């Protein structure tokens, strides 16, 4: 028996969210009194992982797996789960992992819970906390099947260092036939995606128009942050749809969320609530966002944001 953590890579490099997955899985393995196996696909150098602790790393190298295919990937993971006799499988909440998880659940006849935010509170019955109602509530849920798949919410657990030397196993897999063909991929290059970002700077209708978005972009650049927006902003075409966050847009679960000129409607808050620290900048002290934020500045964005940006630049220069 072991815990299997599946972590993602991009062009041969381990994705950043992986360290949280490994940290969590390692604690889970301790709780279960078993070992952790980490599965990586097409990663050249796995030494980064030693810091977070795995008994064993299973490495699959196969150029056919350079492009993600949910059916083929879920099948590959199930082969590894069977090979390692893993009863608990931990995955991230990236779009790829959420895509493959249900298929993996059927392959392994496993129960699957997404949006998990903690270690299990009980092992028998296996009980674990997840978010539901789009972050408006939590649910204690049980998984009753023998094999269990846990989808961990990003930034819910954090990173725990746990130096360990892992053994390495190269694993050969056989691949299913492709049924879906990728014609083309369009990546917004040079920009940090909302899912990968530690910090997200978000703008609302209070910014008056797309021509003022340099305020948001400059601040984001200083902070190494991703940019996002409220729904009306993307509906009006000021910003691309991919930046729309909230209950009906992308979820944000980041360490720091800075909302500028956003009122804080319930549908907006639902989607960003699981971010750790929320800062709001709004000229209306009655804006509902102030009730949901950790820090607030009542002021005009056009005055506050450029000055904040300058101060942050100075701070970054001093602290790097």
């Amino acid at each position: 028996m072991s815990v299997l953590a599946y972590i993602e890579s991009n062009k041969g490099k381990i994705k950043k969210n992986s360290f949280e997955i490994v940290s969590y899985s390692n604690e889970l393995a301790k709780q279960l009194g078993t070992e952790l196996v980490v599965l990586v696909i097409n990663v050249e150098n796995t030494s980064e992982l030693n810091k977070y602790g795995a008994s064993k790393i299973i490495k699959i190298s196969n150029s056919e797996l350079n492009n993600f295919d949910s059916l083929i990937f879920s099948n590959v993971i199930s082969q590894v789960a069977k090979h390692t006799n893993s009863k608990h499988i931990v995955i991230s909440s990236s779009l790829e992992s959420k895509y493959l998880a249900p298929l993996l659940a059927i392959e392994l006849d496993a129960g699957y819970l997404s949006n998990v935010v903690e270690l299990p509170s009980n092992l028998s019955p296996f009980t674990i906390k997840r978010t539901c109602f789009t972050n408006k509530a939590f649910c204690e849920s049980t998984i009753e099947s023998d094999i269990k798949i846990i989808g961990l919410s990003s930034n819910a657990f954090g990173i725990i260092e746990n130096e360990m030397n892992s053994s390495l196993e190269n694993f050969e897999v056989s691949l299913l036939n492709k049924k879906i063909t990728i014609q083309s991929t369009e990546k917004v290059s040079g920009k940090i995606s909302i899912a990968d970002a530690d910090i997200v700077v978000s703008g609302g209708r209070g910014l008056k128009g797309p021509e003022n978005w340099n305020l948001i972009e400059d601040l984001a650049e200083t902070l190494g942050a991703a940019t996002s927006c409220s729904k009306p902003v993307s509906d009006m075409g000021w910003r691309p749809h991919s930046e729309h966050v909230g209950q009906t847009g992308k979820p944000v679960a980041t360490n720091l969320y800075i909302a500028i000129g956003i009122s804080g409607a319930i549908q907006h808050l639902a989607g960003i609530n699981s971010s750790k620290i929320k800062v709001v900048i709004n000229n209306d002290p009655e804006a509902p966002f102030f009730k949901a934020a950790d820090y607030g500045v009542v002021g005009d964005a056009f005055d506050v944001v450029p000055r904040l940006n300058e101060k942050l630049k100075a701070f970054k220069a001093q602290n790097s």
Partner: protein
Amino acid sequence: MKILVCISHVPDTTSKINFIDDNKVFDNQGVQFVINPNDEFGLTRAMWFKEKQNATIDVINVGNSNTEPTLRKALAIGADKAIRIDAHPIDGFFVAKQISEYVSSNQYDLIIAGRESIDYNGGMVPGLIAGLTKINFVTNCINIEIDNKSVTLEREIDGGKETLSCNLPLIIGGQKGLVEESDLRIPNMRGIMQARQKPLEVLPTYNSESKTNSIKFHKPDPREEVKLISPDNLDELINLLHNEAKVL
């Protein structure tokens, strides 16, 4: 072309969420229920296939009789027939099993579900149906075009999008982008009248287990009051973010 749209019946996005019976049950007192937003985008896209490519649309829900107004709304928007599998939806696996059983004896070319429901947030029902039925599956779908049996789709990926192609039959997890908000349809009087005459079939539960269970709900702890920082003292904000919140 035969299309099946999976309809999840969920609290309206403005609803206050509360629980009763020792926090075991969602309190639907005073809550307005709607078609899950992601399913509404899917249904609207299905209407486009109906109008332009002669598709027929069935809608399906796994739920108790209180979901019927939501199914009637889907009929009023333009679906041809509704199916309700009479069961309490215990978990995603149970729901997927019910729909898969139905699908295996009723052939569809395209099954449209939402990428996620806004109540359970499982993000798993369409994928589980795909796994059970071995039908091609694309989620986070933001565009779909069908020419005979061949399909071209766009899918949102982390940090961008990709274009895919495959053959029918297919199941998708849809979201905004399939159509825009402004394309969504509010049922008109004629639609509502017609919906009353359209078939709403109630089927018994297929024998199936669930794999997970929701035991108890609770709401997030009330948060501390916001710390207000004067716009003339932004250094203090940076100081707090650095030393107190430790996020800088």
